[in-house]
């Protein structure tokens, strides 16, 4: 690999000589004078390397970081989890850090096998027959799922979406999908936080549910899927927290036809919101409508196992005019991290982390809801995230008190929906110790007093 070195005077002269020019000015002679910058650039003077490093370190210390300076209870689609060191160690190997698309099976066996393993584990986790590898993030995976449902249901154009689906995911659907292509209806949530289905009919292509949804509520997808099946409507289950399936029954097993969501929780850091990795799986019979790439396992003429990109005809590099989607990267390095994470923990490990998340969040939820002055926004069961509504004080007062204790107490829900004034979405993962939780409850008690 070529390293980056700036041009020397010698390099410049050599290039100018080749072009038959005597100076840079002469090279750019054809450009009009007014496009050139006049005077000096507004830059500070040069710094020593050490000085420069100190300068940027001082800048970075102005940031709050989830682990170091603040205890973060922020979730809402991006979750703080412990990442075993083996994930960094293996995924940073040079062989994997490539933007190269592994079309040539002959030289890509390692990458292809990693993708294959990722798909297999995702399919297992989501309880579906087949999973692709991989989408940009949960939001774009959901938009692709809706497009996929509309492809399968050629003659239907209505899409019903639970209002429990992440509001930013809904915005992504709106920007992906041509309004002439389908009619979107939103399903209001009841007290439990479950979407209210209207009378179903044969004009509906799919129903999108949240499992768990944006407010942390585990929507009853088995009942929804059962009703949908009677009208041949596809059920799409969408999640933001993949680790939930270490504890909950997989959405595919509960009757969801297409399952999509965010895989960040599986070994990828928060990193300011991305890049993340979208997970997407479906029933076997829809494999040809699944967008993106798919790595398959086969045997060569000698019977040795090998890996290839398969069913590529619906991807954009072959018959691109017929491609099922324009998705063109696979966030492969993030997918690799997810594969290493899942491979490291195994089924038992994921189950135990999921249980740990759930127990801590339930403890916090139960303790908080015993306090006067706040209530649960939705009553339905949740995994590691729940929404509360403050009745006696303002959210501003609450947040200030927590910030003074170096706690980011949750996400202000009014940011997503103005009707949710004074409501807070609180997330709790395995990264919070019992003392952390007790501290949270203590601060809550003080501020509500």
């Amino acid at each position, binding site marked *: 690999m070529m390293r980056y070195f700036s041009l020397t005077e010698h390099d410049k002269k050599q290039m100018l000589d080749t072009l038959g020019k005597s100076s840079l000015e002469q090279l750019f002679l054809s450009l009009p004078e007014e496009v050139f910058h006049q005077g000096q650039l507004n830059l500070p003077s040069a710094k020593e390397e050490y000085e420069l490093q100190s300068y940027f370190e001082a800048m970075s210390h102005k940031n709050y970081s989830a682990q170091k300076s603040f205890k973060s209870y922020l979730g809402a689609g991006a979750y703080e989890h412990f990442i075993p060191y083996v994930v960094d160690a293996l995924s940073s190997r040079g062989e994997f850090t490539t933007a190269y698309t592994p079309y040539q099976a002959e030289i890509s066996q390692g990458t292809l096998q990693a993708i294959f393993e990722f798909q297999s584990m995702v399919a297992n986790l989501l309880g579906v027959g087949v999973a692709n590898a991989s989408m940009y993030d949960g939001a774009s995976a959901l938009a692709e799922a809706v497009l996929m449902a509309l492809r399968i249901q*050629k*003659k239907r154009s209505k899409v019903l979406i639970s209002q429990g689906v992440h509001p930013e995911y809904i915005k992504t659907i709106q920007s992906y999908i041509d309004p002439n292509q389908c009619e979107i209806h939103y399903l209001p949530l009841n007290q439990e936080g479950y979407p209210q289905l209207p009378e179903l009919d044969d004009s509906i292509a799919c129903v999108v549910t949240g499992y768990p949804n944006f407010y942390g509520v585990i929507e009853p997808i088995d009942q929804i899927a059962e009703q949908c099946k009677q009208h041949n409507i596809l059920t799409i289950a969408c999640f933001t927290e993949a680790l939930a399936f270490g504890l909950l029954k997989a959405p595919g097993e509960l009757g969801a036809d297409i399952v999509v969501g965010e895989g960040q929780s599986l070994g990828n850091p928060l990193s300011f919101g991305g890049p993340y990795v979208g997970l997407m799986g479906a029933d076997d019979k829809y494999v*040809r409508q699944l967008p993106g790439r798919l790595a398959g396992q086969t045997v060569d003429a000698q019977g040795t196992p090998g890996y290839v990109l398969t069913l590529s*005809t619906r991807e954009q590099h*072959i*018959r691109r005019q*017929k491609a099922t989607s324009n998705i063109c990267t696979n966030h492969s390095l993030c997918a690799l991290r997810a594969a290493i994470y899942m491979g490291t923990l195994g089924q038992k490990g994921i189950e135990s982390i999921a249980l740990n998340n759930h127990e801590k969040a339930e403890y916090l939820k139960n303790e908080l809801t015993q306090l006067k002055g706040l209530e649960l926004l939705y009553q339905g069961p949740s995994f590691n995230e729940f929404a509360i509504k403050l009745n006696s004080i303002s959210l501003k007062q609450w947040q200030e008190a927590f910030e003074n204790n170096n706690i980011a107490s949750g996400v202000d829900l009014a940011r997503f929906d103005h009707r949710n004034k004074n409501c807070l979405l609180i997330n709790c993962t395995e990264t919070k110790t019992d003392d952390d939780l007790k501290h949270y409850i203590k601060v809550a008690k003080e501020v509500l007093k």
Partner: protein
Amino acid sequence: MDFPEDLYYTKEHEWVKLLESESAVLIGITEYAQEKLGDIVHVDLPDEEDEVHMNEPFGSIESVKAVSDVYAPVSGHVVENNSALLDSPEAVNDDPYEDGWLVKVEVESMDFAQELMDAEEYAEFIENEED
């Protein structure tokens, strides 16, 4: 190579069979086409009641080598598709003129026959194409 006398043929290597009792035709691909495609692994067909338009693609056939569009030799609407091919696409390889038929189309008019080749013309056409 077998090109039954009672069929009409297109330059895109589809065959058309007139069904005597009704104003519908059967459409498939020729033995020559299936042999060129190789092992067929998937067939994508229009739904019943879909319209097809002469010389426009109405479905596709995927082999281990490639995916090819299938062009409609007639205009009309689909009354039946050979859904058995979804489970056993290899029927197109094994028996392109019988079990491997693709769709049955109710045609708007019989004029299409003038545009198509008979078995003899088609055999000649292929011979020239091979050269």
